[in-house]
């Protein structure tokens, strides 16, 4: 037993987090920043955070992740990091020639209270930011919120580049939230199929799923361009996918540039995708083409064909709020039963939404927002499940309790595929079902006694 010290009895813990279901803000800011074309993320603090964030993103995406750091030592921690950041901006624009540097703070620079707007201003005045280049920034104190908050804050930082000319450009902004590069690509494909011209930001497709060609470029082809970001102020509207990842930026665009917004769930599963497609249709005033309805029908078909394997299967779920909400809805919609749900985000709202979604589940449902994986494990020990859905770290629970695991969310550092195969939209729904079904049936095959081992299902 790898987690041999986890007791069955759940004792309340007020101070000790064990096996967290979240991490800190800056890593989210770094991921979001990579979704801007030609952007070099920069971590304002000591070099350790930056190293950790780059390592984690590299392990998850299996791609180079470059980012600068202000390399604080004790001096900077006491006297402030202005000199370090100004010097860093100079060095980065000189050596790496990015279009944009996206600065985010860390615990350290937040605690000492470094003023990012003032410092970037100074750097610009001192001529350290070349003509036509940009610096965007986000405050990402890691003792507030989670990695998801950091993502959201950096997307808000991007909105600061938006400009409005007063003339609408006929496009719809889509903020996809913290999803995989493949998901971002799928959102673009689906939107194009529906016939809507979108500007998506951030967009890590093309950046974090690059080819191997013998060439290395710190700034690959993909990513939302500065020009596109500027034009977001002229869009006819914004669809924010996910309250926790995307809504703040969309609202900021609304206040600053009068771009109306609508907050939707992340389009995982049938119903959330339906709402996304429908919203696109209404905003752009188009008819949804037959091709999209056909894709939808395939997903419905698969659900009906395989319903017997999903029906009333108990699931334990851990992940980020936007993902967990959409996934819970999807699982419930195919008659699976999420019975233990944990997210690291502290939020009454998340909890309420999850309770609402699972109201009809015919079992007792445990929900923690915020909870950790130690708690999730204890719940599983008391009420076993048929399947666990969570990130890589859930594999310790899965092994100890001998329960199949579907890897989902961030980070997944021991498998591949998540970068390339989407789980959003109807096509993504098909893939999710395929994975879930595969795990469940592998298990049936493994456990069946010889006399009832069968070829067909």
């Amino acid at each position, binding site marked *: 037993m790898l*987690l041999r*010290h986890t*007791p069955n009895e759940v004792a309340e*813990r*007020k*101070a*000790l*987090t*064990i*096996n*967290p279901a979240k*991490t*800190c*803000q*800056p890593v989210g800011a770094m991921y979001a920043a990579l979704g801007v074309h030609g952007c070099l993320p*920069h971590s304002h*603090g*000591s*070099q*350790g*955070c930056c*190293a*950790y*964030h780059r*390592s*984690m993103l*590299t*392990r998850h995406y*299996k791609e*180079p*992740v*470059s980012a*600068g*750091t202000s*390399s604080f*030592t*004790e*001096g*900077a*921690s006491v006297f402030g990091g202005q000199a370090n*950041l100004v*010097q*860093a901006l100079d*060095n980065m624009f*000189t*050596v790496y020639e990015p279009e944009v540097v996206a600065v985010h703070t860390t*615990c*350290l620079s*937040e*605690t000492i209270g470094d003023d990012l707007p003032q410092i970037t201003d100074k750097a610009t005045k001192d001529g350290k930011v070349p003509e036509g280049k940009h610096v965007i920034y986000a405050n990402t*104190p890691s*003792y507030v919120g*989670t990695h998801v908050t950091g993502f959201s804050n950096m997307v808000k930082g991007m909105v600061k580049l938006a400009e409005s000319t007063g003339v609408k450009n006929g496009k719809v902004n889509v903020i996809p939230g913290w999803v995989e590069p493949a998901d971002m690509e799928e959102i673009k494909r689906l939107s194009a199929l529906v016939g809507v011209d979108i500007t998506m930001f951030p967009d890590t497709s093309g950046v974090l799923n690059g080819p*191997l060609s*013998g*060439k*290395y*470029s710190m700034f690959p082809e993909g990513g939302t361009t500065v020009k596109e970001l500027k034009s977001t102020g002229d869009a006819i509207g914004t669809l924010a996918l996910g309250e926790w990842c995307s809504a703040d930026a969309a609202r900021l665009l609304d206040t600053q540039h009068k771009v109306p917004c609508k907050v939707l769930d992340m389009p995982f599963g049938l119903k959330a995708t339906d709402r996304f497609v429908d919203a696109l249709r209404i905003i752009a005033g188009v008819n949804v083409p037959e091709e999209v309805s056909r894709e939808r029908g395939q997903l419905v078909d698969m659900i009906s064909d395989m319903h017997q394997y999903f029906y009333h299967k108990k699931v334990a779920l851990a992940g980020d709020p936007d993902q967990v909400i959409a996934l819970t809805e999807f699982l419930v919609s195919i008659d699976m039963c999420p019975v233990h749900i944990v997210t690291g985000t502290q939020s009454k709202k998340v909890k309420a939404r999850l309770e609402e979604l699972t109201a009809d589940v015919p079992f007792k449902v445990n929900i923690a927002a915020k909870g950790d994986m130690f708690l999730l494990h204890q719940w599983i020990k008391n009420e076993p499940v048929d399947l666990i859905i969570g990130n890589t*770290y859930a594999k310790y629970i899965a092994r100890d309790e001998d329960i199949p695991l579907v890897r989902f969310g961030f980070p997944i*550092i021991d498998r591949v595929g998540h970068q390339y195969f989407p789980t959003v939209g109807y096509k993504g729904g098909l893939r999710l079902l395929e994975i879930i079904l595969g795990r469940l049936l592998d298990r049936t095959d493994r456990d069946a006694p010889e006399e009832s081992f069968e070829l067909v299902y």
Partner: protein
Amino acid sequence: MATAKKKLVKWEPTDIKEEMLKKYPPKVARKRAKQIMINEALENETPEITANVRTIPGIITMRGCTYAGCKGVILGPTRDIVNITHGPIGCGFYSWLTRRNQTDASGEGDENYMPYCFSTDMEDKDIIFGGEKKLAAAIQEAYDLFHPKAIAIFATCPVGLIGDDIHAVAKQMKEKFGDCNVFGFSCEGYKGVSQSAGHHIANNQIFKHVVGENDEEKPGEYRINLLGEYNIGGDGFEIDRILKLCGITNIATFSGNSTYDQFASAHKADLNCVMCHRSINYVADMLETKFGIPWIKVNFIGAESTAKSLRKIGTYFGDKSFIEKIEAVIAAEMPEIEAVVADVRTRTEGKTAMMFVGGSRAHHYQDLFSEMGMKTLSAGYEFAHRDDYEGRHVIPNLKVDADSRNIEEITVEADDTRYAPRKTEAELAALEEGGLKFKEYEGLIPDMDKGSLIIDDCNQYEAEKLVEILKPDIFCAGIKEKYSIQKLGVPMKQLHSYDSGGPYAGFKGAINFYKEIDRLTNSKVWSYMKAPWQESPELSATYVWE
């Protein structure tokens, strides 16, 4: 294959250095120039290298932080200490199982907290009002849940800034519990210039709070400690296997596959064998001063080096039958290795490598490469000090700068009752006479070729330039560097946590490594870089059907 496309232009080392520095702003170039050295291979001619100095803001470094060195590297591999990170969730999260430390906790009643991540998960109110209360409560909760032998606390950046006194909290809780040792590490990330500061802080505290706590006699005739081996990918398991075959008792490994009791009993050994000089040489010194245990430098990376290190241990203890046993073990293990090398060498002979890793790894692994007939063109450390490059004789002249001054130095004295010299002065002198060197490490420089480039704190930009210019057949560094190097069409082997595979230490490890490098450098994938239409893009007016 990559070799076929080698650059034909012959670069002089000085030109390479110049090319690497060209794009930097002048101040940066000046600083980096002192950390890039063209090896003269003779210590008296070789210019001094600058090391253990700050990284440059904005220049993408390979380094991590003091906390990473302390919690991740040194304490990470210990299984029965509950390691609580005091800080916001991130630091604890990222150092959770990411270093591939293996441990064997299969014994009856063994404790193993390594798969757990404990954090006080500080929130803004803790930053504003101070986190000591929450820390004390977290320690209490950990104690109530697990009743471990020991609880260790690690301070992260904000903790140092707001001035939480983790040591006072530790002391208070230790007294309260009575049966659980509680101690803290002031290893805030900003404290030093690299992980090295963290190793130092970790080792000092382990020495102060744990070493010597258990005075029970330990069995075994030839008792050693293995210092600076972290059991990445099972390295320590393989070394332990070999030691056992030879009849050597390993009292404590610092800190691969280690336990609290190993540390507590370390003063019972009769010889200290230092693997990673950087991370732990001072512990060897302290054990000698306080308890009278001499130390030698060993290296279990590479088959020849392993044999040599075993022989050194044999010479130290001096018993004829023991020495014969060691020779018998070496003789039994070598044929398999020789057979693999003979095969692999036909494909690796003459190939080239570069390595930029941690402390001693960038040195040790060169032995494995040379066993395969491969040459190291350039190497350097991520967090070493000058003595790791130039040898221990430079230690007295090392300048103590502001960044090193805030790392606690502890001074130890001979223990009143337990100091016992393991060998007399005369015996030590005789051994020295016979070629066994105590307290000695000559550093990386003498082992590298003349004209090779030795680079301290190499960064992404320089790495990329080196690869473009010299096209090595393999590059070794860490996970952050992996994919940018591979995009250039050069295989990259992680030598921090090995990506996959291992062990690479000892005899079986050497075989694993030869095969791994053979696989990497000869993989077909490197020939797929260009599609047929990119190889010969000329258009033809008509397609000729066969």
